[in-house]
């Protein structure tokens, strides 16, 4: 009887949840309507929104509470959340789905292999369809970050969307960042949008947990100051550069001690917001707050709302972040690199950069001494035209500076030729630069033996990378082998200046 009547979930659940997750009440209500067996449970549901908007956290929290609810009104709900970031392959995904569903249902069947969606369907049907369940029973299967699943066959998403057609008591929830149109290839699926937090949202979220009261200040005053402070941080940093809740929270917590420094020192009171703001203006322009290098150690301060989504992001961004971190680290330590490497590898690296960034056809112009009796350098003139940050004359289609396009592969032999051409000049430059004639001279006179060593050193440091099909096999010193320099412009410029070479003069655009 009760199963035939419409019923919304307990209001108490929704209100407590709305307090835990401020500014998400509409989404929580819609979600509970679409998931609760007594309301309007749909077969498939897509939840989408950018990172750190509470998609995963709210779904999980709501499902926990709905499943904990006593089944006295005839409706019961079980759920399982499968995070795609934790699954390396599609098979891994299937088997963790089966495992988690079995756990949720306390199913004691033998664990079974599950290599395809077909088998997954069978296993799920065994547990959910062929086993008789009470009338108001519903199982919710959540695929978190399924759009980032690795090694997914292209039929994965449509197939998962068909699960609920085959198993009537199943609701499948897909949590994605941005759904492409008709990506499930079924007729209309409800899409629930978790929009980005707006400024008032950000502020009210952070106002939930104000910092402890400041000296000579009441808790209320501190809370008011905190609210205004977070709004100022939002305007200065979050809206301008990094509009996510974790980075915003981090910026606020990092800035708060500096901002309230005058209060601690007793020079200002908590009511003088404008004076505090002017005093702390320098800190608000501190870019390091958002920079990953500095952020790394303080990332633990994320709020509960982001704990689940972060793995997804990290998994996505990991491969790309890695090289960036090393690059920026190297850019900072550009001088260090120059100190760490001996002269020959340094000069070799410069030669590699030139080989990667100059076209072969300009080699004659740059390095030949035949026509003019001396080398003509490309000169900084053409390069500075495309230089960073400087304005340049615009034609209809601008030419892009070569060094912006990234390193090209070069043949080892060519690089060695360039090195031979510039070696004499550069070594004398570096000598005069360093004023250490004795030790260096001995090293430099050694000849070719240390060039091979230097190349091997650079390659093992990944400053120089072997490319092409022969990268795996083949002799490393094969003169026909293709290589590419793996360091950026900033590093090279620093390195060049370290040995007294102005690299810009050797580049032709």
């Amino acid at each position, binding site marked *: 009887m009760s199963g035939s009547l419409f019923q919304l979930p307990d209001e108490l659940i929704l209100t407590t949840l709305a307090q835990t997750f401020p500014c998400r009440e509409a989404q929580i209500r819609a979600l509970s309507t679409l998931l609760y067996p007594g309301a309007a449970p749909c077969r498939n549901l897509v939840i989408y929104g950018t990172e750190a908007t509470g998609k995963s956290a709210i779904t999980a929290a709501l499902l926990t509470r709905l499943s904990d609810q006593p089944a006295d009104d005839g409706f019961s709900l079980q759920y399982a959340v499968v995070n795609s970031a934790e699954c390396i392959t599609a098979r891994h995904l299937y088997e963790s789905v089966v495992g988690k569903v079995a756990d949720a249902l306390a199913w004691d069947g033998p664990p079974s292999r599950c290599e395809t969606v077909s088998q997954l369907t069978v296993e799920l049907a065994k547990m959910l369809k062929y086993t008789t369940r009470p009338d108001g029973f519903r199982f919710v299967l959540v695929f978190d970050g399924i759009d980032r699943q690795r090694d997914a066959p292209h*039929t994965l998403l449509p197939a998962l969307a068909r699960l609920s057609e085959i198993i009537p008591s199943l609701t499948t929830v897909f949590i994605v960042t941005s759904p492409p149109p008709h990506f499930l290839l079924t007729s209309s699926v409800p899409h629930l949008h978790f929009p980005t937090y707006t400024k*008032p949202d950000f502020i009210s979220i952070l106002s939930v947990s104000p910092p402890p009261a400041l000296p000579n200040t009441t808790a209320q005053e501190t809370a008011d100051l905190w609210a205004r402070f977070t709004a100022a941080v939002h305007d200065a940093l979050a809206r301008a550069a*990094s509009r996510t809740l974790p980075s915003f929270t981090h910026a606020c917590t990092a800035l708060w001690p500096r901002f309230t420094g005058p209060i601690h020192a007793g020079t200002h009171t908590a009511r003088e917001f404008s*004076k505090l703001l002017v005093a702390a203006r320098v800190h608000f322009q501190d870019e390091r707050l958002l920079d990953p290098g500095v952020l790394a150690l303080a990332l633990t301060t994320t709020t509960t709302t982001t704990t689940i989504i972060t793995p997804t992001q990290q998994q996505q961004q990991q491969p790309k972040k890695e090289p960036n971190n090393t690059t*920026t680290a190297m850019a900072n330590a550009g001088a260090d690199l120059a100190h760490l490497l001996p002269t020959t590898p340094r000069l070799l690296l410069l030669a590699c950069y030139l080989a990667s960034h100059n076209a072969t056809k300009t080699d004659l112009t740059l390095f030949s001494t035949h026509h003019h009796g001396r080398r003509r350098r490309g000169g900084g003139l053409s390069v500075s035209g495309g230089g960073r940050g400087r304005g340049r004359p615009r034609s209809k289609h601008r030419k892009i500076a070569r060094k912006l396009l990234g390193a090209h592969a070069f043949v080892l032999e060519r690089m060695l030729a360039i090195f031979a051409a510039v070696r004499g000049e550069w070594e004398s430059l570096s000598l005069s630069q360093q004023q250490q004639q004795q030790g260096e001279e001995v090293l430099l006179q050694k000849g070719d033996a240390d060039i091979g060593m230097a190349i091997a050193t650079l390659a093992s440091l990944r400053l120089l990378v072997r490319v092409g099909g022969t990268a795996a096999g083949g002799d490393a010193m094969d003169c026909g082998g293709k290589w590419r320099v793996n360091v950026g412009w900033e590093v090279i410029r620093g390195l060049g200046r370290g040995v007294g070479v102005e690299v810009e003069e050797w580049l032709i655009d």
Partner: protein
Amino acid sequence: MVSRNSTAAPRKRTRSQNDEEPSSTAKKRRLGTSENSPTTDADVADDAGAGAGADEDSKPPPATNGTLRRGRSLRAAQAGKQSLAHPKEVPAVEEKPRKQPKQAAQLAKDKKQPKKAQASVSSPKTSVYDVPDSGEDELSTATVAPRRSRPKSAAAAAAADEVQPPPPTEGDEPPKKKRGRPSKRDREAQAEAQKAAASSIEIPTAKKPKGKLAEHAELPKGILTPRKGKVGGGRPPKGVAFDSRPDDEALDSLAAESPSKSARKRRQAADDADEMAVDEGPKEEEQQASGKESGSDEEDDEVCAICSKPDSDAPNEIVFCDNCDMPVHQECYGLAEVPEGDWICRNCSQDDVTSTAHGGADQMKSSVVAREDQRPDIPNFDQHLRSAQRVLLDRCAARRRIKLRGQDEAYEKASQLVEQTIVAGEGNSMLIIGARGCGKTTLVESLITDMSKQFQNQFHVVRLGGFIHTDDKLALREIWRQLGKEMEVEDELVNKTTNYADTMASLLALLSHPSEIAETQDGVTSKSIIFVIDEFDLFATHARQTLLYNLFDIAQARKAPIAVLGLTTRIDVVESLEKRVKSRFSHRYVYLSLPKSLPAFWDVCKQGLSIDEEDMALEGVDLKLKGHDAFWEWWNGKIDSLYQTQGFKDHLESHFFSTKSVSAFLTTCILPLAALSPTAPSLQIPTVAGLSVSLEPPDSKLHLLGSLSDLDLSMLIAAARLDIVAHTDTVNFAMAYDEYTSLMGRQRVQSASSGMLALGGGARVWGRGTAGIAWERLVALGLLVPAAAGGRGTAGLGGLDAKMWKVDVALEEIPAAVKLNAVLARWCREI
């Protein structure tokens, strides 16, 4: 000379700027010709003499050195004047002489000096005399035109120039004279050292300049030092153009200590100070690495941010915010009096923060209250409503089938075919073709339901799906499993046959007519089997189409009574069948179409909002409950009146004209239906904007733009601009960041010159690291998609900088999708 400086400088400033460019180009040209056709020393000297004009022409060729010194001093004096009049010009002036010798030194070492002397002598001369010399070449005549306007001062200058002998000039202007020289000399000296060290072949040519340099050897030290001192301290005030004011230092220190002047008020009397600030503006800007625009450099053009009027008079002055430098009128902003000390605008002081937080909640409540309306007087209204909601929501959420409307013919055809199979044991095959959401599955499923009512236990159903059973092996095993389950074959038998061939063989055995195979297994009868193959087109992609071949073969050869119903959206699916498969297919089709007219569409959609009389009992509605008829009469009346409202009609039409998808329309009804309660029983479709969330899918990726920060947007716009500006379809981070910084640089120059309001954080140039994070965010959001692997051969290598991406958003889409600030909007507009 000094006295002339102080008087003539104001006007001189503009003129000398004009002069500077042509004369220097003239110089360059001349040098160029001398490079091409090597001239002798005598030639050069002659040339120099001619160029030097009347006061120099008596000098014999050997005196080139003297000419050089004289010319240099004149030129240097010129430079000195410029540097006095316009401090910012200094580096540029300095730059030219430095570069000049450097180029020349490499080709014509010894010829360079006289040449240069001649050139540099001629250029001050042309600036001094009204009438161009006969010795002057036509290039420098171009500089005459601007000069004509002020003959008097020029004449005075000429007089002064002629009277002044060289030695005093040197004594008077020693620091200026050195401006061009030291760097060149240093360079040459350095080159000398290098060449000596490297034992280069160029020693002979390099010697001459060295000797020449040696003559001036003691000059640099003695002259350089006082100049340095002068820059530091005893220099006249920068704003030579205006009366020097004593509070100049005060302004300076103010600029250094705080980025903006506190609560600056406009006064007529303070005009001079303002002018000073204009001169100071660029310098100050340079000093501030933070990139914050200072408000001081465009005072003249400062307009109120609200009314856009520049006037600022006593009762209604323009006030500047100390945080964001926003200028507003007192009246426009509601300030009774000019505040003392720091003043911060309401936006920066975040006063509105606390008030809006409470306001939002109140608004929500009040609108909910407003929706309450009369509750009809019907017994058991609560119960009626909830049971109606149950049925309708199940229909809208696709958990209950709705009836097929307007597809009777198709249904008849399919049902006849299936019935023949079940009753007469015929083998049949049929394709059901129609767009997504037009009711193919509904047709088949209601067919099977009807059949199972009619012919209980006389047939089996096997359901296959193209997305799930991705190859024939899986499909076969699935068939075997489903049949085994339905036929209650023991599990062992099902599990035993894991081999593809075995499965096939036993399946064929199972399907074949008993009479064909001698050893008929017990318990296996020849019941009819209906195969429902969803996404039939995907099965046609399987290798050799084995499954389809076998199924069609069985159906055609009457080996067993099976019906194959293929469901597909592709109208040309038969073309993809192999010949042997196609020939076994019966070529029976059923086409389902979407509703052809709006009333037909509404007829289907209506089932999601109302229940027909005959379906009441079927759907489990309690007919005997008191008030049943009254409730449904009331409810249907409600739906009919809803259908008459314009908003609902528009909503329905938009669905009809865009997709004709019934289920999409029904999805939008879920939340309004669920929101009904006995206290608020009137349905609102479409829902009032802002009250509830929509369940419709997003149109495109553009909704993501709203969640981007200003920096993310800037990077995206920069990348999208490169598409057009540089005509590349792929970009990497280095290119985009370069474009971003150059746009930002131009923006700052423009805002400084046009007096446009700097938009707080919008004017800030973010560093490479932060921009890298923004770039990664764009990648993570899918706004940048990786370019095809091997694009420029850099895929996967070279780190963040070099990896190539395609921008998934066109430049012109960006302003339409998100509200941009003025700066970003202009970047989108102006290529």
